[in-house]
């Protein structure tokens, strides 16, 4: 359980995190999204007790990170951004150090380390100095360190950054497997990852929470949610005017290789459009139904200035 209450951080005149509030419960995997410099890492640094908040508070399993840091940190596994490590050590020595500081001795220590090494697949580089490891392996050492004590709460700052596709898949698999027993926050720039493993996503921009919901909820906020794209080589005359007149249709956009029909909020237009096109016997190669892209939502929410209003698109479509 992570409780973040009105967390704020100023770096001199810069407000990096601005009254961020959320709660993550056991079983949830929270995806932390936002453009570069949004304040994701800073928020995580405050949750893990590395930075003190300017105001507000963070609690890990009920323990305030500022007033009861040891209890909070004991329940926490943290992969910092960039996975900083003691590069003159080998993964073996490093994990022994972490296990020692986490209070594991003897056979228990060996068991814990073996398990972490196996989860992060470090067997082949176990005795190689960390500074000679590739970026992906360094990140995996960081991950092994965070998982070593099987913590109740995991805070992972871009855990799959720098991993190859197989490893990305494996790490997501690990997170998915652990999820029911843990409280997890991950930050990422890979939106498909959110779809794949997160039960919930928060988008922050300029230090503020601008969206909070399940990946599905967020997708539904996309302009292209439930949109229908018609692939055709030649667009029949007046097609746009006819389509925009259909019930439930908000606007029409020209897209490369065809037209996109955008629904009014809450409307489902697939069968209407499909039936209409079949009646007219238009030369349509393919009809694509969009569930809505997180990427669009992300862009629309975090860069509102560049949002093309649907009505403008419709007007543009009508003119074309």
């Amino acid at each position: 359980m992570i409780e973040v209450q009105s967390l704020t951080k100023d770096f001199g005149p810069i407000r990096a995190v601005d009254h961020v509030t959320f709660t993550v419960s056991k079983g949830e995997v929270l995806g932390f999204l936002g453009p570069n410099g949004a304040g994701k890492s800073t928020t995580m640094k405050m949750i893990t007790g590395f930075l003190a908040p300017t105001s507000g508070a963070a609690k890990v399993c009920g323990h305030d990170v500022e007033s009861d840091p040891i209890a909070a940190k004991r329940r926490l596994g943290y992969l910092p951004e960039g996975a900083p490590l003691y590069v003159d050590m080998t993964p073996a020595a490093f994990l022994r150090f972490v296990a020692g500081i986490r209070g594991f001795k003897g056979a228990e220590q060996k068991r814990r380390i073996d398990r972490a090494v196996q989860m992060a697949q470090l067997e082949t580089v176990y005795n190689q100095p960390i500074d000679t490891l590739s970026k992906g392996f360094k990140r995996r050492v960081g991950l092994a360190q965070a998982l070593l004590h099987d913590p109740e709460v995991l805070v992972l700052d871009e855990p799959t950054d720098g991993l190859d596709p197989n490893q990305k898949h494996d790490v997501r698999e690990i997170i998915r497997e652990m999820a029911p027993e843990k409280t997890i926050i991950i930050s990422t720039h890979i939106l498909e990852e959110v779809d794949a493993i997160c039960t919930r996503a928060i988008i922050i921009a300029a230090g503020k929470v601008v969206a909070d919901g399940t990946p599905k909820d967020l997708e539904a906020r996309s302009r292209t949610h439930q949109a229908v794209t018609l692939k055709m080589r030649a667009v029949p005359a007046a097609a746009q005017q006819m389509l925009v007149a259909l019930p439930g249709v908000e606007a029409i956009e020209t897209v490369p290789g065809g037209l996109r029909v955008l629904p009014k909020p809450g409307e489902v237009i697939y069968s209407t459009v499909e039936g209409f096109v079949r009646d007219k016997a238009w030369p349509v190669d393919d009809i694509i139904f969009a569930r809505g892209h997180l990427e669009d939502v992300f862009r629309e929410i975090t860069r509102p200035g560049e949002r093309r209003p649907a009505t403008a698109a419709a007007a543009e479509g009508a003119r074309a």
Partner: protein
Amino acid sequence: MSLRLRNVSAVFKREFVSYFTTPVAYVFLIVFLALAGALTFYIGNFFDRNQADLDAFFTFHPWLYLFLIPAISMRLWAEERKSGTVEFLLTMPVTLWDAVLGKFLAAWIFAGVALVLTFPIWLTVNYLGEPDNGAVLAGYIGSFLMAGAYLAIGSCLSAATKNQVIAFVLAAAICFLFTLGGTNIVLGFAASILPQSLVDLVASFSFLNHFDQIKKGVIDLRDLIFFLSVMGVFLYATTLVLELKKGQ
């Protein structure tokens, strides 16, 4: 308490081992031993004095430490901050005290190793005559304590920056003040502008004066307490600096 000990010793072990994974430690040891030997035999006129003691050897320690100790202490925190590992260390379940103390002890024991490796000088003096080995031991204890005090100062300044060069220069400068406070130049100057009580105060903070007492073979509780307090104060200051950095 045992938890404390466990954390301190884990930090200590990692730090201490890390000294020996790079050539820097060996270079340091060689430089230290070469300088200690050269100063004793050439400048200290060890043989000409015709005295079976290590006074010529210990006399140079404060000056040797002045720039060699900041070379050890500069990396303590600055390096961790530069590489980002400080974020990892300080999000482990250890208190700032555990981390500060563990790292400090590693540096101090390392300095102790350097000191122990000067034993050939002790052997030489025993071969040449019959020194007061009690006084020699006192000299070693005093020198070790003084090294600790210099290191604690260096630890504090290393925590204040991520630049090791700056950490070195600041530590050397402050250590210089603490050392110089006991020289006649400073005391003479102080006497010309300050009342006697303040001059005594300046002198009482001088590492030179306290070390001089000990190396004569007189281990006075006050001198021990002095060095231990300097360590305590500056290690506490180190935790304060780290706490301050956390809040930026």
